[in-house]
């Protein structure tokens, strides 16, 4: 298979209650983290890396990432309506997100 030829080491990290499959240099959007742009954050909840399976976490493994920016997601229009009940609600929403660039994956 093609992806076998170009396989890069990947890790599964958990942040903000979600799991992400990351490779080095990947850019990912995660739930807002408390860190300024340009700073480095360490994601230490690694559940899987390079064939090592965490129970639940891989001991000593970590993923370093640079905070690219603090941003907000696309605007979502929440529109609720119940017909014949004169009920209508309209609200906008933008999720607070942090864009991360993966700089290093340490498999321990």
């Amino acid at each position, binding site marked *: 298979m093609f992806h076998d030829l170009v396989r890069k080491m990947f890790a599964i990290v958990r942040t903000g209650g979600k799991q992400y*499959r990351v490779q080095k240099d990947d850019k990912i959007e995660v739930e807002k983290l408390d860190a300024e742009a340009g700073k480095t954050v360490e994601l230490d909840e690694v559940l899987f890396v390079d064939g090592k*399976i965490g129970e639940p976490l891989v001991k000593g493994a970590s993923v370093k990432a640079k905070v690219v920016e603090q941003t907000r997601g696309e605007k979502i229009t929440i529109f*609720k309506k119940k017909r014949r009940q004169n009920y209508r609600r309209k609200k906008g929403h933008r999720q607070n997100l942090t864009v991360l660039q993966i700089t290093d994956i340490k498999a321990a």
Partner: protein
Amino acid sequence: MARVKGGPRAHARHRKVIKAAKGYYGRRKSCFRTAVQAVEKAGQYAYRDRRTKKRDFRKLWIQRINAAARMHGLKYSTLMHGLKLSGIELDRKSLSEIAIHDEKGFEAIAKQAQAALDKAEKAAA
């Protein structure tokens, strides 16, 4: 005081709705009365489907995990039970990603689940 007529406001409102109805079929894209109905319904569907999207993807991941698990002599439900016993907290999205991109890694996971199941069975016997 001068009388205020509703023309410009009404026109602005209509324009907003017509803009949102771009690309719709037939008169729903150009005629205000039908366009409002279409846009409102679209909003309701969008709200509902942001929720069903989560279920739909979970279903897809489960199908993928099941297929991969059966390649290693387990079925989906026993695999998940084994994972729970062995303390692995990978979610269904991650498991399916591993199954797709790292066959060996998934095999290792299946083996670990199997081992945990065997251990539990021995303890029960």
